[in-house]
């Protein structure tokens, strides 16, 4: 099993004739079992094809052409047009929207998220690379060309959630090399406001029978990590989590932003030191180095296994 997408997922690409979109369309078609990209949208380009995917002027036309509801959309239009494209997708009944575009002002992102919430849709991103279910499907540029993605991602029990697209692949590759495959890896985006945070994806991973542990990549800025810590405490710590925290040097440089727009330290809770303390207080393991993650995860997994066995043992004794 996986979260968010599987081999039956249908999606469209908005802005499909753009340079990056043409590449990611190819990559998604080639990867795993081959994505079902049922159409693309670029206003004024109806009638064209991109790698065999028919292009339309509006999302409404793609839905009509497909003849049944479409699950998702990858949005790769310029920042000034993104809100309109996302509104269009949501109003056409699409429930999963991956926004690749970066440099979208927060006001626009908040509007997209608010409408999505009203309509029961979910947004991943903006400023993200999308979602990958190893050997099955990828939705977005995550992992790059099919051949490269196959080299880094392998199927298995670990869910990956990352604020950096590139680091999603780096961490998954490290896990794969250590024999720990991934159930689903999600690049959630590097902006200050994003559609789906760690804590908002955790219930999905917790409900997924394949997922046994979680790895997150995190950075300075925002209180997403604090929110995750609160979620873990409130929900009885259903899955072991190992976090990696980058950008520790930024604690000495308040007001500066490196890496992603969302890394700017605006509040007291935003520093890496503060985040690490909160994560650890909630029982989340924080890795100093990426290569330490597989071992830490294995240890946590076997600890849980032991305590589950012990619990099963004691309950048997009790009934006897």
């Amino acid at each position, binding site marked *: 099993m996986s979260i968010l997408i599987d081999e039956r997922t249908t999606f469209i690409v908005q802005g499909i004739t753009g340079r990056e979109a043409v*590449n990611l369309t190819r990559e998604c078609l080639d990867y795993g079992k081959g994505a079902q990209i049922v159409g693309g949208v670029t206003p004024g380009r109806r009638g064209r094809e991109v790698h065999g995917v028919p292009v339309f002027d509006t999302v409404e036309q793609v839905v009509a052409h497909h003849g049944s509801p479409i699950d998702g959309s990858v949005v790769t239009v310029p*920042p*000034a047009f993104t809100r309109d494209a996302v509104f269009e997708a949501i109003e056409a009944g699409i429930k999963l929207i991956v926004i690749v575009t970066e440099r*979208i*002002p*927060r*006001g626009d*992102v*908040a*509007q997209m*998220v*608010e*409408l999505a919430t009203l309509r029961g849709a979910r947004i991943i991103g903006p400023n993200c690379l999308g979602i990958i279910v190893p050997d099955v499907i990828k939705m977005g*540029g995550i*992992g*790059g*060309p099919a051949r*490269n*993605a196959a080299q*880094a991602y392998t199927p298995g029990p670990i869910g990956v959630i*990352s604020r*950096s*697209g*590139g*680091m999603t*692949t*780096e961490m998954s*590759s*490290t896990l794969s*090399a250590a024999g720990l495959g991934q159930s689903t890896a999600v690049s959630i985006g*590097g902006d*200050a*406001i994003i559609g789906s*945070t760690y804590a908002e994806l955790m219930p999905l991973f917790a409900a997924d029978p394949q997922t046994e542990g979680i790895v997150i*990549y995190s*950075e300075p800025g*925002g*209180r*997403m990590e604090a*929110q995750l810590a609160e979620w873990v405490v409130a929900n009885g710590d259903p899955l072991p989590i190992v976090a*990696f925290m*980058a*950008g*520790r*040097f930024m604690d000495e*440089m*308040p*007001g*500066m932003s*490196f*890496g*992603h*727009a969302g*890394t700017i330290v*605006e509040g*007291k809770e935003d520093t890496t030191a503060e985040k690490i303390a909160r994560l650890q207080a909630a029982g989340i393991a924080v890795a*100093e*180095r*990426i*290569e330490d993650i597989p071992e830490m995860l294995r240890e946590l997994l076997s600890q849980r296994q032991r305590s589950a066995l012990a619990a099963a043992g004691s309950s048997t004794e009790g009934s006897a």
Partner: protein
Amino acid sequence: MRFFEYEAREIVRRAGIPVTDFGFAKTPAEAREIAQRIGGPVVIKSQVLSGGRMKAGGVRFADSPEEAEAHAQAILALEIGGHMPRGVLVDPKAEVEQEYYAGVVWDGTRKLPVMIFSPVGGIDIEQVAAEQPEQVGRRHISTILPLSDFAAKETIARAGVSGGELTKIVPILRRLAELFLRYDMTLAEINPLGRLPDGSFVALDAHMEIENEARGRQRELLLELGVDPTETRQAREATPFEIAGEEVDSSDHRGVAGNVTEFDGNLGLVIGAGGGSLTLFDAVRAHGGRPANYCEIGGNPSVRKAAGLAKLVLSKPGVERIAVMMSIVSNTRVDIVARGVIKACLELGYDPAEKIAFFRIPGAWEEEGFKILQKYGIDYADRSVSLNEAARRAVEKIQGANEEAVR
């Protein structure tokens, strides 16, 4: 990007919120003229983008235009927090009965703006929230529904304020929220908001920050405020090295070689991708390395651009070697970056094998990239060597070289 107080107050005024009859002066003579026009006691405030103006002596009171001129002269020459003032703000000294706080900020968790109000103003709102939480009202507002007075009313009422004050502050808070959304602010704060003896309210100071990503579409506002489009107003001014970095990035539209930031070490970094750069910079420092710079390569830059960045870093005084490292790439190409950094060495008359301490970029086109690195005898690694280990090797090499030199 932060606004100076005089700009923030102008934004408040445009939103229809009452402000004092302030003026902005760049010279002592201008300050005197404004004081004369105001015709009474005034406050002279340094216009710098740093806190602690009061403590540093950047805020002074004057009873006459002559005194205003003298204070302006002193303040204009006063450096505060490493910044020289842009000018001074000359403000009528108001008789204030009570100071309040009104603000709007983003809540990243709820993904909505939040209005904040308190009858305790003039001090840091975080302090009020910690010490007198019942005196702070908060309320989230929609970004897609029209802004309505009731939201402001609820926020103010939640802070325990009622009566004539409540009804008079409602339009002020609503307008503050409107300007926050209309102008893509990340912070819009009136602190203090003063109640005058006649019962009216006036903004006595304002803090505004606009989102960098929205500067393009807020061009008109910025133009009218006289903000130079090239001003970054980062926490620290860009150095010539950083400006040269921006020039390299804008020299060619393909890919990114950006966010070049100067540090004072001896190991030049040609590092990449947002998250990868953060991870690598930490790793270099964790191993005792002294980075000469931070940067982010991404989006598949041209050979020329990669070379331009590497040359810039290699030419920085104090840089002994460079480390070329990225997290696994899928869009940026290993071979193109390899060509770029080697070309930079050759064009500067260096042996690439000597100058490139370590190269670790796995991923797209790595087979071709590794052939190039082999040909020039450069020490490199594939993905089996972690980012951390790559950083360690780079640091070890530069420190090893220094130890030899000492011997």
